[in-house]
């Protein structure tokens, strides 16, 4: 057995905890999770059944923790996990799983399948099996500070443009600010209007905030590839900057997995609670709304819908906030049939969009969203995750669909009233 395989198997063993054991013990192989996974529903290939993607981990659990498994191992009948098997499973664990967690919501016996996929990835990467795209993104995140290779000078340049556009100064490295905002590289490079949007809203609401020049990146390739060590290092950078600037809150940007990384995994990755609170930008905007500090004027007349980013909504718990915010500026907000905690993923989460090998499969999986949008007949789609946004735009373009994708923060900023709330006159967006 090679050293890396041994390390991978050891890592997998260490990740078998009480929930994992109870899930595998309880699974009755009913296959209902298949119908919850867009990779199965859009291909009808049984290998994309979520619980099947965990077969190597299940085999290891069986060998280590069951009567028959242990007996077979003692008698020499047990077939140990091999590098070939892990290699064969790599595309199932990475390419065909966005870690959206929809399967975990539908399993009749209660298996949290994505909880186990997250653990399975730890073993896979420890054994050396992970997609090249994710490996290089993680390497860039560690060495450069961003999975897309964005350094502070690039952000500074974008900030200059944004400041010129909105006529406001973007605060950087302000000690003692109340909030430290984070960004995703995708927002910096593809959707810099997000920076301008929050700057305008915060200025109006009199929020004391700042960016950190040494920790502006919120995304965390470490949790996508499944390396807790690397994920912890990325979280530590944010924590160090927040401590240096003595902020009370760190604002997670619209990006979905960044929220999971910062809010839910972060303290566990670094092994201690934060000395600050993590708040999602939507939670903060919704607080401002409830305090009448987010006055808007006019509403979008066209029918529109909202795409729930899985890591913010189903896996993050920020469910009603985007809806309350969207209602402020949308005259005809229609929900897709499956929405909220039962939404369908865009197809690009969990590192799939970073994984070039999965590009074709990702577009096939997008058909689920296409059907949802066609059923609703909308031409405007609002979302709150830069990665979802780029995946949706790709899918829409590929399918020649005339649907505009908007970011919620920018949409709110566009409707921001100067002083007090304006009367609800309608205007075309």
């Amino acid at each position, binding site marked *: 057995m090679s050293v890396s395989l041994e390390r991978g198997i050891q890592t997998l063993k260490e990740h078998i905890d009480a*929930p994992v054991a*109870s899930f595998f013990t309880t699974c009755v192989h009913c296959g209902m999770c298949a119908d919850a996974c867009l990779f199965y529903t859009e291909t009808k290939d049984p290998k994309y*059944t979520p619980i099947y993607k965990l077969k190597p981990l299940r085999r290891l659990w069986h060998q280590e923790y069951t009567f028959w498994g242990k007996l077979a191992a003692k008698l020499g009948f047990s077939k140990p996990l091999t590098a070939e098997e892990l290699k064969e499973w790599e595309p199932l664990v990475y390419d065909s799983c966005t870690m959206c967690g929809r399967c975990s919501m539908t399993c009749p*016996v209660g298996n949290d399948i994505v909880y186990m996929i997250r653990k399975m990835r730890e073993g896979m990467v420890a054994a050396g099996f992970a997609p090249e795209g994710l490996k290089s993104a993680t390497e860039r995140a560690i060495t450069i500070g961003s999975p897309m290779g964005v350094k502070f000078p690039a952000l500074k340049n974008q900030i200059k443009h944004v400041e010129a556009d909105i006529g406001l100064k973007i605060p950087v490295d302000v000690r003692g600010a109340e909030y430290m905002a984070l960004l995703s590289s995708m927002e910096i490079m593809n959707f810099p209007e997000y920076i301008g949007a929050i700057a305008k809203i915060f200025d109006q609401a009199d929020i004391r905030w700042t960016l950190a020049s040494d920790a502006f990146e919120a995304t965390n390739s470490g949790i996508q590839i499944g390396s807790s060590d690397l994920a912890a290092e990325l979280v530590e950078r944010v924590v160090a900057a927040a401590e240096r600037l003595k902020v009370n809150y760190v604002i997670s940007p619209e990006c979905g997995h960044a929220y999971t990384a910062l809010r839910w995994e972060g303290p566990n990755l670094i092994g*201690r609670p934060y000395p600050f609170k993590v708040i999602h930008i939507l939670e903060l905007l919704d607080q401002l709304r409830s305090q009448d500090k987010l006055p808007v004027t006019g509403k979008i007349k066209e029918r529109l819908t909202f795409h729930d980013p899985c890591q913010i909504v189903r896996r993050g718990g920020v469910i009603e906030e985007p809806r309350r915010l969207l209602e402020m500026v949308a005259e005809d907000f229609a929900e897709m049939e499956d929405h909220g905690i039962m939404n369908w993923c865009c197809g690009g989460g969990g590192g799939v969009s970073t994984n070039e090998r999965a590009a074709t499969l990702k577009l096939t999986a997008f058909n689920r969203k296409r059907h949802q949008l066609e059923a609703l007949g909308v031409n405007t789609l609002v979302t709150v995750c830069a990665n979802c946004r780029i995946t949706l735009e790709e899918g829409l373009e590929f399918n020649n669909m005339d649907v505009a994708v908007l970011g919620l923060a920018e949409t709110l900023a566009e409707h921001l009233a100067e002083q007090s709330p304006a009367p609800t006159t309608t205007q075309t967006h």
Partner: protein
Amino acid sequence: MTSTEWLIWVRGPGLQLSLGIFILGMTYRIMQTYFLGRAKNLAEPRGSQWLHGMKTIWWRSFFHPGMTIRGYFTIISGYTFHLGFIITLLFLDQHIELFRSWTGLSWPALPPIVITITAVLGIAALVAVLVDRFADPVRYLLSDYQDYLCWVLTVLPLVTGLLLVYKMWLPYTSLLVVHIISFEILLVAIPFTKLSHVFTIFIARWYNGAIAGYKGVQS
């Protein structure tokens, strides 16, 4: 040993032995799972783990939104054979008599025709599940030897019991021995096979609900 001597053994020491293995085995299985533990969550919670866990135990017992034909079939056939088995086990007058002789507790039995119906429905649902396991490419791919073994172990007490009621196949005493042994094998197998899901389902559902509930999501 004559069939009568066998009957004495299976109703006495055999049953005690199988019950003992069942109780000790299941206790070990649950303890083994529990003591694997899980890391303390250091993130600030948004919701109650306990409450959401309990709610998930309850809500996963029903149909849920977005369910497909596979889902409806699974839930309906699952309930049919589980209820068919449990009603037959608990409400046949001979079974109640056996419970009464051990514990002194008894309750009204259901008429034999009702029990026949529950047993037949249970067997029919099990047959449907087995056919589907071969016919559905997803289930076929997922299935391993335990799925088929557990199916046999579950259907045998129902089939032998039905034959017993209608006095078919073997002489009564011999068939009664086979029937009781089939149940005892099932009892012994529960802790050592995936049949243990009859207990661990509550643990799995609770963890699922607790993990999501910590983040303020009802799963």
